[in-house]
């Protein structure tokens, strides 16, 4: 790569020719503040916070989208620059509902941090007339409050990045606001509930619907046995909410915290991930042997499922009929476990801790009530769990490491990698290949399906046949892949799709990392590494070797794919259209 010579604040520097001024400043050790900029997602230079002075330029320059050139002289901290940034913030504040004391993002708000960092003293300097907006809480999983919106459009870009695009800027000038087409309610659109807009939002304008009160009430109810399960990726991200480094595995502290919050049983969704593999691998082999609909596509990700129902209704038959691990957990808890423990399913309250806002939607789907009551009562995001831990005054980082309860805390390495793109495929292959060959795998890793690439493909030669698999994460990549499948350009037997880019580790329910962090580290890869490390550390790494899984089949379900398994662990989908 060719370099150019520039000066930043008088210091000479050689930087790549295609760098932006913002990137060049970072190479010089200067973090220019940004607000609307999300690397590779929203690069529109709209907010004017990242302005710098460039010698010879007529006006201040938005560093996030200005390219460097030979001989450029950049100044990042002149009075003119500092004054401009401050005025911009004051103007943004003039239409921002400053409910900072009670705001869900207080303490983790990028606007709040910028105001503090850039010395905004008079927050009401430009106050004047404002447009009144209603809160849109029509969707199952989230709300939008335009009175806190600063029109940075990061949510719009995130929605487009998912190839959904149901929110965008409407009207113009003073009336400009983010909304859906014809200002319809979000709940009436083809929103897939992925929550990528939430983790992109710098303020409290978009957030998940907080359901922690329902959980506090259940915990205080002596009639209820409150059972919690934590999705694979939560252990890799929860620590971030307490200032721990990205990619720290906090499984032990998480279990300790849940126990101290008062949950009667602390179980692991990794168990039901193993259960999902048993059913899904069986379904796959069954479709291959008996000429069923191929490619089989995984059904763990409710954001992907909703995307498929809206945008690819003609491919619903390709979806695995398996419930997601969350729903399988609730279903097996309220049937097999309830029976075993002599509990009335009506008095069991199942709480899931999920990386995902679409899980809140999934809980309310039809055909998710194996015991005649909803499989899962409440799905909380990682952020909501962190909020409960804070509210309870638990000093998370100082908690001891504790182990999950038995029996539904027993899981394998195959279960834990479900949280990263490619993980479900790898887990399924571990079981499917051994079932087909009847021999133990020498190496349980399937490197080809690992990594954060949006689309991955591999062909495996198993028992005399070629199995073509593909993995996509992020619904835009899913869209690209499915177009190739539909046109006949690509032929696969088995496809894993996760709705969020990078999979659940990067889900819409995960702790919000500021753009200043997101732009400079690979969140997806760091978080995923924690899961692959956990897999490697496990004694048992194949779902079918999980002793409790064996017990559940032997004593209750019979074989994978049995009638009883179908009744309890499988579901149906609907064509939603646009």
């Amino acid at each position, binding site marked *: 790569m060719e370099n150019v010579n520039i000066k930043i604040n008088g210091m000479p520097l050689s930087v790549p020719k295609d760098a932006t001024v913002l990137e060049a400043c970072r190479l010089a050790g200067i973090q220019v503040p940004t607000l609307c900029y999300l690397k590779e997602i929203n690069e529109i230079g709209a907010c004017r916070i990242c302005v710098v002075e460039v010698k010879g330029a007529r006006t201040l320059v938005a560093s996030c989208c200005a390219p460097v050139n030979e001989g450029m002289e950049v100044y990042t901290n002149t009075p003119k620059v500092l004054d401009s940034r401050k005025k911009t913030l004051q103007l943004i504040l003039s239409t921002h509902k400053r409910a900072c004391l009670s705001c869900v993002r207080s303490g983790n708000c990028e606007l709040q941090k910028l105001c503090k960092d850039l010395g905004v003293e008079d927050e009401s300097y430009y106050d004047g007339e404002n447009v009144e907006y*209603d809160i*849109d809480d029509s969707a199952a999983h989230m709300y939008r409050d335009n009175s806190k919106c600063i029109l940075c459009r990061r949510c719009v870009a995130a929605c487009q990045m998912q190839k959904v*695009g149901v*929110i965008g800027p409407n*009207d113009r000038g003073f009336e400009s606001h983010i909304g859906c*087409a*014809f200002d319809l309610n979000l709940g009436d659109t083809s929103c897939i509930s992925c929550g990528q807009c939430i983790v992109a939002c710098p303020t409290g304008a978009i957030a998940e619907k907080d359901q922690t009160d329902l959980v506090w009430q259940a915990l205080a109810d002596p009639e209820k046995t409150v059972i919690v399960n934590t999705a694979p990726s939560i252990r890799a991200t929860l620590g971030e909410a307490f200032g721990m480094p990205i990619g720290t595995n906090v499984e032990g502290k998480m279990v300790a915290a849940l126990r101290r919050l008062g949950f009667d049983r602390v179980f692991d969704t990794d168990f039901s991930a193993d259960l999902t593999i048993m059913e899904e691998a069986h379904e796959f082999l069954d479709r291959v042997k008996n000429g069923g609909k191929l490619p089989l596509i995984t059904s763990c990700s409710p954001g992907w499922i909703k995307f498929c129902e809206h945008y690819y209704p003609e491919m619903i038959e390709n979806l695995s009929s398996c419930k997601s691990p969350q729903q399988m957990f609730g279903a097996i808890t309220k049937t097999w476990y309830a029976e075993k423990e002599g509990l009335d399913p009506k008095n069991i309250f199942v709480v899931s801790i999920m990386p995902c806002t679409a899980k809140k939607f999934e809980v309310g789907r039809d055909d998710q009530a194996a015991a005649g009551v909803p499989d899962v009562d409440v799905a909380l995001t990682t952020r909501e769990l962190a909020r409960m831990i804070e509210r309870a005054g638990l000093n998370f980082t100082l908690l001891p490491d504790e182990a999950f309860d038995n029996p539904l805390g027993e899981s394998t390495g195959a279960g834990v990698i479900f949280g990263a793109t490619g993980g479900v495929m790898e887990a399924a292959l571990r079981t499917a290949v051994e079932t087909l060959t009847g021999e133990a795998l020498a190496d349980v890793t399937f490197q080809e399906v690992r990594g954060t690439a949006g689309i991955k493909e591999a062909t495996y030669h198993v028992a005399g046949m070629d199995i073509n698999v593909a993995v996509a994460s992020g619904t835009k990549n899913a869209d690209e892949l499915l177009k190739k499948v539909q046109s006949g350009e690509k032929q696969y037997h088995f496809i894993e799709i996760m709705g969020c880019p990078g999979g659940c580790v990067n889900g819409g329910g995960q702790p919000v990392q500021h753009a200043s962090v997101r732009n400079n580290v690979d969140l997806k890869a760091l978080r995923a590494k924690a899961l692959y490390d956990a897999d490697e550390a496990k004694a048992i790494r194949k779902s079918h070797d999980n002793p409790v899984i064996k017990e559940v089949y032997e004593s209750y379900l019979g074989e994978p794919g049995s009638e009883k398994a179908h009744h309890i662990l499988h579901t149906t989908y609907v064509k939603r259209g646009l």
Partner: protein
Amino acid sequence: MANKISPVPFNGTKEQEQKLLEVIAAHKDTQGALISVLQQAQDIYGYLPIEVQKIIAEKMGVPLEEVYGVVSFYAQFSLNPKGRYKISVCLGTACYVKGSGDVFDKLSRTLGISSGECTPDGRFSLEACRCVGACGLAPVMTVNDEVYGRLVPDDIDGILADYQAR
């Protein structure tokens, strides 16, 4: 916030749709052709209801919200048809200081629509305009080609009743 779908039932014809599809086909692969398509669609239908925008979104391969974002940005695009009786109230300086704002508000209240909208029965549409060149008669409004001057809000019920009866 109430949605912006026109309350006037859509009654586009097969011929109109055919024309629209031809316009889209001619522009489909041209970068930045959306505005051009929207202008021609409005020429065909007279306005851009959700039914028309949905066709454009689907055939152009862009989200409906993106189409709506453009339509709602430009004043030249209308989400509502013009009524059989098109009421324009002058909110120019002379009329405004003579009280045309009150006249406009009275119309808006009585008809239950705001500027740029049309009553669900398709009879009346309401818009604000700037100076019809009859400042001596301020405040002024027009209904189609008919001019009404020296108005007070109390005149409105009578005028509307006249058009209701036609």
